[in-house]
């Protein structure tokens, strides 16, 4: 990055299974209005808008940013629309960062959203594509075999998935914006139906309506703002091809390379010691230990032990997903940006009831496609 960039405003909607009270413009404006108020800015102050969401088939509107331009004060401004599958919220925020880092824009509004209740995600995302094998049973059916491979490789015991799920829900009880906030117990998870063995129902993410917006800005703007900003120390988006012989979907190369690039650029030598909290994209509980390894917080095979010891809980060494994460809130296109925004809130010291004490450095992370797209940033309370 040619010059420093900071998050100066964060806004998100109340997330739920159906925001029947809002139109699509209403939903994105709920988040964008809050982010701008947070930054002490108005639509007129924004230099460019960067929008992200997952497939347009979810809402049945093609390139909806075109009709949303007017709702976001983007008339006669530059606007781009990003789509990198599940990672899109994160890659969208990073595209906004690039805009500011270039020196060409000082204040960029970035918005990510999904209104899954408008359509039917299951239908929209698994149509019978022509001339392709007719077997993939939704995202769970795609990813469950890799969870099984992780378990087989590492000896991860069967209680780890449920522990992750329970902890995520416990965290979400302290997040007013989260979709699923009712506490649940280990037994609740164990007794829930096994959908895609080894994945149980309560180890999966919900389907949500929601939006999140961030204002990213230059250093000069950040110093003028009403609040302490979150400084973006580094951010990268990497992708890898699908059909590479020996490609490891349990710990994808793109994730490792992306994390290393972020740590190197941010000057992080030991992520376990130097990062105080992380918001990572865990749509199925088993991915939490998998990503802890992929992101270099421990050695290969040790991720589940972090969970087993409870070191990823609030108040322990590395609170993971203090917001409750994707397991409690999943407006697909917004989920990645929620991770990055929550990481920013932590280092700003403004995460409210789910604030991690002493969070100086935080990692926000998302992935998508067939575990092919990885996008993450490291934010810090210090410039």
């Amino acid at each position: 990055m040619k010059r420093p960039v900071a998050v100066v405003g964060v806004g998100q909607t109340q997330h739920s299974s159906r925001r029947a009270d809002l139109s699509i413009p209403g939903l994105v404006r709920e988040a964008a209005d809050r982010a701008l108020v947070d930054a002490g800015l108005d639509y007129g102050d924004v230099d460019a808008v960067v929008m992200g969401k997952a497939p347009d088939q979810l809402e049945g509107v093609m390139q909806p940013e075109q009709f949303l331009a007017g709702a976001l004060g983007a008339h006669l401004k530059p606007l781009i629309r990003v789509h990198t599958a599940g990672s899109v919220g994160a890659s969208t925020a990073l595209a906004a960062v690039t805009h500011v880092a270039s020196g060409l824009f000082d204040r960029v509004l970035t918005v990510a959203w999904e209104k899954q209740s408008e359509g039917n995600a299951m239908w929209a995302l698994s149509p019978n594509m022509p001339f392709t094998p007719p077997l993939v049973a939704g995202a769970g059916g795609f990813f469950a075999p890799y969870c099984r491979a992780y378990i087989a490789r590492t000896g991860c015991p069967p209680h780890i998935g449920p522990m992750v799920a329970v902890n995520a829900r416990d965290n979400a009880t302290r997040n007013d914006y989260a979709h699923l906030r009712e506490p649940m117990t280990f037994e609740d998870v164990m007794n829930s139906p096994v959908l895609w063995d080894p994945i149980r129902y309560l180890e999966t993410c919900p389907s949500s309506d929601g939006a999140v917006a961030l204002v990213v800005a230059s250093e000069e703007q950040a110093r003028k703002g009403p609040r302490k900003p979150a400084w973006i120390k580094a951010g990268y988006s990497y992708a890898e091809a699908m059909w590479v012989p020996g490609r490891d979907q349990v710990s994808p190369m793109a994730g490792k390379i992306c994390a290393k690039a972020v740590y190197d650029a941010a000057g992080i030598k030991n992520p376990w010691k130097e990062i105080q909290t992380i918001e990572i994209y865990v749509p199925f509980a088993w991915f939490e230990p998998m990503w802890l390894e992929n992101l270099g917080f421990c050695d290969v095979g040790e991720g589940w032990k972090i969970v087993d010891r409870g070191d990823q809980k609030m108040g322990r060494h590395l609170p993971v997903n203090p917001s409750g994460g994707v397991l409690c809130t999943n407006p697909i296109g917004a989920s990645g940006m929620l991770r990055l925004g929550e990481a920013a809130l932590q280092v700003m010291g403004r995460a409210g009831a789910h604030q991690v004490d002493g969070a100086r450095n935080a990692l926000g992370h998302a992935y998508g496609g067939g575990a092919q797209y990885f996008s993450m940033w490291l934010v810090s309370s210090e410039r």
Partner: protein
Amino acid sequence: MSSVPIMRLDVVSEFPYKHSTGETIGRFLAGLKEQKKIWGQRVAGLGVVVPPLGYSEADGSAGGEWVEVKPTGVVTAVAVVHEAVEGLHPFPAPFAFVLVKLDGADTAMAHVVKDGVEQLRIGTRVEAVWAPDEARIGSIRDIACFKVAS
């Protein structure tokens, strides 16, 4: 590579959607359905906008005061369809898409003219034709179409 017969597959992708309207769009549509009235909103930078969105597309500012506009107005753009697209267009050809600036409004509204399209010009005065009571469901098509004003 030796030749192989081309494999083709035609499909029709059909998905139902239910778009939540929110307060502004929802109340505008309720006005069409229940009152047979057309409501606009006065917003920053654009004046009275019909149909309303609850914000100004000029600058993103929120809100707007409700203003009733007339079901009559003037055509500001006209496109006469000579071949209808099956499954997309509302009427058999010829019919017209128009932008109509309703009396009392500052912006125009996109809609359709079913009959008499040969008389349509920019500047032609038109009036709304309402769908019958039982056919109004809270849709922009509760105005069945526009016709050349008598």
